[in-house]
């Protein structure tokens, strides 16, 4: 075991021991924070999957992905405005609206992301590595500018249309919303896993990620496969944006920067390019952020999360589940 690996394990062990101590001393509070972390982490996992898929296939850190996620919430809020939804309770109209709007937002975001890839990233595919990275930052600012022009700098209200049923078990409060977030995220991740492992297009994606030139020689349409990757990444980001809106009921135009970075940290934590790793990393980062919020103080959460980002990249660049690959 090398020294960096050793440092990584020592850090993880220390954190787990400290958390276990908290769990024994105040079990109620611990479970409450755990539930909150799980819901947050589910959303981060959905966003992190998009980062990791795009990185896996074209080695680009798609900075605009966090803003695609935020734009998903904006679009969802706009489309929901066409329905006679009631924010007081859960009506049939709410259910129908939800069932229609959720996939609609996912598809719209998928289309937008494919357009972004076509306009901003495809012309740069053979350019030096830093060029698409800077373009991605530019795209991120562009999307933030679009959202700013659309709704201004203030937070935007997202309709509160989910059932408000909630219960308290042994001092721990949880509602329908918490269950909804985790279940929807789990279903989407499962569908993604099936898609990647069982379908022909999924196989093409895995092949392209492994070796683009060889995949092309095997008759895989690279442009189509990469576009499909962006499409699916944005489906998940759009779903994440919808879930975020339904859960927190507010969005603002710069949400994507901070939460996108946190989701990217999750992707790195799980091993960038590794799909189960991103889902796991999202959950863990969500939990870490929630624990840091309540045990260290919310003003330190950002330092903790980005400290983890730097720490993982320095001590274990392959993340939790990633394998060591030789540099190309």
């Amino acid at each position, binding site marked *: 075991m090398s020294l960096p690996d050793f440092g990584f394990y020592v850090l993880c062990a220390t954190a787990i021991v400290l958390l276990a101590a908290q769990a024994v001393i105040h079990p109620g509070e611990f479970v409450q924070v755990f539930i909150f972390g799980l819901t947050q982490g589910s959303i981060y996992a959905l966003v992190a999957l998009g980062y990791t898929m795009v990185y896996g296939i074209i*080695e*680009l*850190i798609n900075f605009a992905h966090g803003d695609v996620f935020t734009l998903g919430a904006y679009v969802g809020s706009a489309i929901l405005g066409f329905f006679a939804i009631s924010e007081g309770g859960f009506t049939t109209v709410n259910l129908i609206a939800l069932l229609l709007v959720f996939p609609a937002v996912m598809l719209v975001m998928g289309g937008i992301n494919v357009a972004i890839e076509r306009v*901003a990233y495809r*012309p*740069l595919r*053979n*350019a*030096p*590595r*830093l*060029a*698409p*990275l*800077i*373009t991605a*930052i*530019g*795209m*991120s*600012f*562009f*999307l*933030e*500018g*679009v959202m*700013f*022009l659309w709704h*201004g*700098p203030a937070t935007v209200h997202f309709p509160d249309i989910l059932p408000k049923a909630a219960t308290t078990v042994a001092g721990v409060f949880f509602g329908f919303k918490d269950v909804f977030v985790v279940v929807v995220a789990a279903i989407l991740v499962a569908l993604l896993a099936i898609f990647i492992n069982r379908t022909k297009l999924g196989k093409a994606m895995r092949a392209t990620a492994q070796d683009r030139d060889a995949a092309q020689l095997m008759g895989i349409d690279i442009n189509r496969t990469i576009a499909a990757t962006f499409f699916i990444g944005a489906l998940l980001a759009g779903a994440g944006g919808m879930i975020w809106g339904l859960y927190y009921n507010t969005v603002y135009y710069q949400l994507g*920067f901070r939460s996108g*970075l946190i989701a*990217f*940290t999750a992707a*790195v934590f799980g091993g960038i390019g590794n799909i189960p790793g991103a889902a796991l990393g999202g959950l863990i980062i969500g939990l870490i952020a929630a624990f840091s919020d309540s045990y260290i103080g919310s*003003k*330190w959460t*950002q*330092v903790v999360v*980005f*400290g983890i*980002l*730097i720490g993982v*990249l*320095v001590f274990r*660049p392959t993340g939790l589940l990633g394998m060591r690959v030789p*540099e190309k």
Partner: protein
Amino acid sequence: MSTSVFTRLHLRDRIRDRDTAVYSILLILALVFPMASIYATDGTALVSQATRAGTFVLLAIGLNVVVGFAGLLDLGYAAFYAIGAYSYALFASTQLASSPAHHAFHLPFWLMLFVALFVAAAAGAVLGFPTLRLRGDYLAIVTLGFGEIVPQLFYNFDQWTGGINAVGGIDQPTLPAWIQGPWSGDGPFQVVRNFNFGGDPVAFYVLICILIAAAIILVNNLYRSRLGRAWMAIREDEVAAAAMGINTVTTKLLAFGIGASFSGFAGAFYGANVSLVSPDSFLFIVSITVLVMVVLGGMGNISGVIIGALVLYYVVYYLIPGLPENVRSLANSIGLSSETTRSLADATQHLNYIIYGGQAFRRMSGASPTASDSALKPHAVWRTRPSTSTTSSTAASWSR
């Protein structure tokens, strides 16, 4: 790989001529600007703006060393700027009297200018040492994380730094003697004893011009040095550079440290000039603004970066903030309703996001055809060479 090295060497004489022209024009402009603007606007507001632009020029020159010369993408450059600014602000104000140290320091600006330089360079080395072995885009992320953490730390350690309340009342530089003339107001020539920079924007303007001139000379010499060539070799192909015997980690660390030291310089100057340092002045948007300045001016081109910084500063901090007012008066004059006018004016306010996005994209897609061309036709470059044999021309170009 050798394409850009080749063309660069080939065009070197022409580029040097263009640089001379640009520097001469900049020098004349720098000399004329304060007198002209004071005469034209009857105030020193424009000179203060130019001084602010000057700090960005200094930052862009520094970031150009990291991004342009060594090819390391640094997305957290504002962090070093913040470190430089705070290292001056804390030791040249009454801030530390109300901290657990219970003692206010008032160290002289001229000393702290260099202390801030070394502190920022040390911060760069501390961050760079473990991270510079990472690949390019991972490095970008680490610096981005660092750039997010540093302002948050200054915000969180509010016992020492005042946190959100910022550090105010920072000492202004003093000099034993200063010459005043018609350029700093309407007074005659006179030598002022025990001169204090406070309240004299022209003095700050002169100071930043001198700092920029020193930085330009320094960076130009670095560019032509053995170290500069090593940076460019790493930028073009790190594996080949390592094979040529360049110690890539040390070389990259030097680029990082030297780049950071410029922002330490700029930070200390900023603290003294504005006399107020708050964590909010060093957010991600500052790092990106400086990066876009470098990209706009042309990565690795010193005179281009200076012009890029000046142009972008003008657009982002002068043209766009003034735009709502201009749009409002324009809309009023052509008879639009006040409602439309207001929404138009609001819409212009965050135009800089769009401009950054568009600018970064335009530059990058403009750069791509050459890159993909050379990837497709690796021998295209030989045709422009006068030499008959490809091998001998390669040897000649490397030995120059």
